[in-house]
């Protein structure tokens, strides 16, 4: 077990709480930086996807995991970012500017979508965002002058300060930088008054309000920030695929994104990354496993959906805290070995909540 001797309040504010954090996260970053020289082109492309989905996941985690607002239409923000990027770079706007614009436009759309969130909660908010997702998908398909309609639209390779990022390696580097920046922004937000206000809204709106938190302002902020990250992720997504069409931003994509944060572990930043790894590697694992299964099952068309569904049900039943929760348990097991008890993470039944006043 590690005991930390605290001597100043600064210590509780720092991102890295102790030497172990510094060592392991530095090691991880180093590994990510040298990854292009270590892994094959195929796996590097997968890693790029993991990074892109992590950025989107961070945004959705902030909204769903930390503010307690569920969005069933997050693919729409991804799409807004992707199409903004495609339209702007197509018109000759430099890549960094287009990326910022994609984030900002998504944030603006997020604010508008956040408006119903001020009035409706839970399942109703889910339905409102779901409807929004359908509307946006339809706009992508119909607004042919900008989006190219159902035929889709092609993108050029991004160009940064006169340097064309044609290769997989250079684009991976770009995604890594964006991911690190997004992660730092989210971590900073969460350790600041803004982040605490979001957590307060998630846990009890009524007492958040009585502590002086402006519910409408913070919910809108959360929606905007979450959408901005999804938009930036969408812009990178568009560049990575070099081709986008409306059906990439449909309900299935939205559900995949939600699946990602739930399986990763709601309410943890790690969860966004673990969820992204799960979402990207799972199809590969299924593809590899197919050959070992009898043809009737292995070649069945709905196999992936079935496996995803089964995994999700498994997590909801047995590990509501997701992959990150599982990791916490494993880590604790080693830390306190041999004193791990089965009930250590069991929450005692919460006391009866007062009737919701609103």
């Amino acid at each position: 077990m590690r005991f930390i001797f605290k001597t100043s309040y600064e210590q509780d504010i720092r991102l890295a709480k102790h030497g172990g954090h510094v060592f392991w996260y530095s090691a991880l970053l180093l590994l990510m930086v040298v990854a292009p020289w270590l892994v094959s082109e195929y796996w590097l492309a997968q890693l790029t996807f993991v990074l892109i989905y992590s950025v989107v996941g961070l945004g959705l985690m902030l909204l769903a995991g930390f503010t307690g607002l569920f969005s069933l239409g997050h693919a729409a923000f991804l799409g807004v970012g992707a199409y903004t990027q495609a339209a702007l770079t197509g018109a000759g706007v430099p890549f960094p500017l287009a990326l910022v614009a994609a984030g900002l436009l998504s944030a603006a759309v997020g604010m508008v979508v956040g408006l119903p969130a001020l009035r409706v909660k839970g399942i109703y908010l889910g339905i409102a965002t779901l409807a929004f997702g359908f509307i946006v998908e339809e706009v992508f398909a119909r607004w042919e002058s900008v989006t190219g309609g159902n035929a889709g639209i092609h993108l050029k390779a991004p160009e940064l300060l006169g340097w064309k990022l044609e290769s997989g390696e250079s684009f991976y580097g770009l995604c890594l930088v964006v991911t690190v920046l997004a992660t730092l922004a989210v971590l900073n937000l969460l350790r600041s008054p803004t982040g605490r206000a979001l957590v307060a809204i998630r846990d009890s709106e009524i007492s958040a309000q009585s502590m002086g938190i402006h519910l409408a302002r913070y919910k809108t902020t959360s929606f905007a920030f979450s959408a901005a990250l999804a938009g930036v992720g969408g812009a990178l997504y568009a560049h990575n695929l070099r081709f986008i069409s409306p059906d990439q931003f449909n309900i299935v994509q939205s559900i995949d994104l939600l699946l990602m944060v739930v399986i990763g572990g709601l309410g943890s930043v790690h969860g966004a990354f673990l969820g992204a790894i799960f979402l990207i590697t799972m199809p590969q694992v299924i593809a590899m496993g197919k050959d070992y299964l009898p043809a009737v099952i292995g070649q069945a068309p709905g196999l992936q959906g079935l496996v995803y569904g089964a995994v999700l049900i498994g997590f909801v039943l047995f590990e509501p805290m997701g992959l990150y929760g599982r990791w916490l348990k494993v880590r604790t097991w080693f830390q306190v070995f041999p004193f791990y008890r089965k009930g250590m993470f069991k929450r005692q039944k919460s006391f009866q909540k007062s009737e919701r006043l609103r």
Partner: protein
Amino acid sequence: MSGEILLSARNLSVNFGGVLAVNDVSFDVRRGEVFTLIGPNGAGKTTVFNLISRIYEPTSGEIHFEGKALADIAPHGIAQIGIARTFQNIELFEHATVLQNLLIGRHTHRATGLLSDLFFTTKTRRAEVQAREKVEQVIDLLDLQHQRDSLVAGLPYGVRKVVELARALCTEPKLLLLDEPSSGLNVEETGDMAFWIEDIRDELGITVLMVEHDMTLVSRVSDRVLAMNQGEVLALGTPQEVQANAAVVEAYLGAGDDLASLRRQAA
């Protein structure tokens, strides 16, 4: 006691679809006193609290705090002008640590904006340390050192009650609303609570308005007591006066001739 008037309620009435929860209630809370609302269940005590925190709108009547009409202030602005509260059934932020809960109590004093927070500038950093210093003072006052890093979800009921009081104190209020501070506490914890309420009034100089059923606690800490029944004021005065008031006794125990007839039946 004749301090200036901090909070004044005038002719408050609330009508929930035909049910008069509060009917023409008026009272003044003076600066520096402990003012207690008592009354049987359903008397409208918590409704009065919810009117002051602007969770409900009064059907008629008005409340003034330091001369300002509360009706002009948004619900989230109530904390800003110096009114903090606790809840009858505890409304803490369950999936956060005690420390985080108390830091949220510092929200009204936040000095930084979203951008500063995003980059965690030196300004935010300094503000965080200052907030922490204030929070630690409250932790010292209420003996919460051991629970500082515990998740609220895993804490026993008695401790949660104290954490909620601590969170309200972190806002540095002028008026503290305590909704049944001793409910669910054992005798020893209730004793601690009484000490703290006295400390809050005498040392921090915070005016306390509370709803309470435990008459031992009420008579120990209250300067004045307002007894309510079925939304109406029965009596107002010192704890002793109110306890001796015939209408109050009747509200709690029933009228004398009721008792006499019960005895006759039993005999």
